[in-house]
């Protein structure tokens, strides 16, 4: 069991056996087709490449389509992802949510929601300045360094800028339920990304 590609479908809640409420994220995962096996001899590292999500053939380039045809896939697939490590998978194999079991701990990787250009208060959790007594220092970043020495701003100083829309991996996510019939994976709590965004789930 290496991993699977899926699409986040939204959140809801379930009741467990004791009747407690558990928040869950619904992920429509797989079926993923193995498109390539990378080996240490040939590619320098071991990995399994999988494809997920149908699309029109004309949405892909000819080299992309050819790559899929090589694996015996007739229709276009929108998403490819690579999972490091070997395993007993062969090109053309299908991976479904049945590869996961309830209660299993997985990691979920997605692209977080874009927040645009944000100030330091939202982006880095800086404290606000005073709001009264004539202060104009409400959401200012404060000092960014000393003066004549070092006479420059150190690299990596936390400032305002673009926030979100980056790859985020959530570790230790528990699988609450798998639904092989509808290709659904229900995991506890929130996962990165907006609804309908692509997420990659890896077993640990």
């Amino acid at each position, binding site marked *: 069991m290496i991993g699977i590609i899926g699409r986040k*479908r*939204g*959140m*809801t*809640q*379930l*009741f467990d056996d*004791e*009747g407690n*409420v558990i928040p869950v994220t*619904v992920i*429509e995962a797989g079926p993923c087709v193995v498109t390539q096996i990378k080996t240490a001899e040939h590619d320098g590292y071991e990995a399994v490449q999988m494809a997920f999500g149908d699309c029109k053939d004309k949405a892909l380039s000819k080299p992309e389509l050819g790559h899929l045809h090589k694996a015996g896939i007739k229709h276009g697939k929108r998403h490819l992802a690579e999972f490091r490590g070997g395993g007993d998978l062969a090109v053309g194999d299908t991976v479904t949510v049945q590869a996961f079991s309830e209660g299993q701990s997985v990691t979920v990787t997605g692209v977080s929601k874009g927040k645009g250009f944000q100030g330091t208060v939202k982006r880095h959790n800086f404290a606000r300045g005073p709001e009264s007594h004539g202060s104009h220092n409400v959401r200012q970043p404060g000092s960014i360094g000393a003066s004549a020495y070092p006479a420059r701003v150190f690299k990596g100083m936390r400032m305002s800028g673009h926030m979100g829309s980056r790859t985020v991996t959530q570790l230790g996510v528990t699988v609450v339920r798998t639904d092989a019939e*509808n290709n*659904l994976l*229900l995991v506890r709590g929130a996962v990165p990304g907006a609804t309908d965004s692509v997420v990659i789930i890896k077993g640990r």
Partner: protein
Amino acid sequence: MPLCAALGAVVAYPARFVPKGTPLDIIEKIERDERAKRGAEIPEFKAGDTLKVHFKVVEGTRQRTQVYQGICIKRQGAGLRETFTVRKQSFGVGVERTFPLFSPKIEKIDVLAIGDVRRAKLYYLRQKVGKQARVREKQR
């Protein structure tokens, strides 16, 4: 919902309206299955009604049923996430308890009286004490 339902009337809780021809939303399907898990038939009630909630409590290994009686001051949320809050006076102190409407822990909900109120959220009861903290019963 009829304005004045008979005491103890049971509502079927149909799924959210979905336009004809659209496939059922994945989330809606899951919530529909989950709603079927509920411990009791849910009677029709609204804010202002006096309720008796039979709630399962686990103490260590023992399980017993706790009865909680009071006035429903609000119903909140939609679908599977809907909750209701019951307020009562306990030894002179106001106590509010919120239950998930579809919780399997709820064994039974009895509607003891239908209240005559003009609001959906009876937060004003929090400021009232004694006789004023009552809700008039609906006259039929």
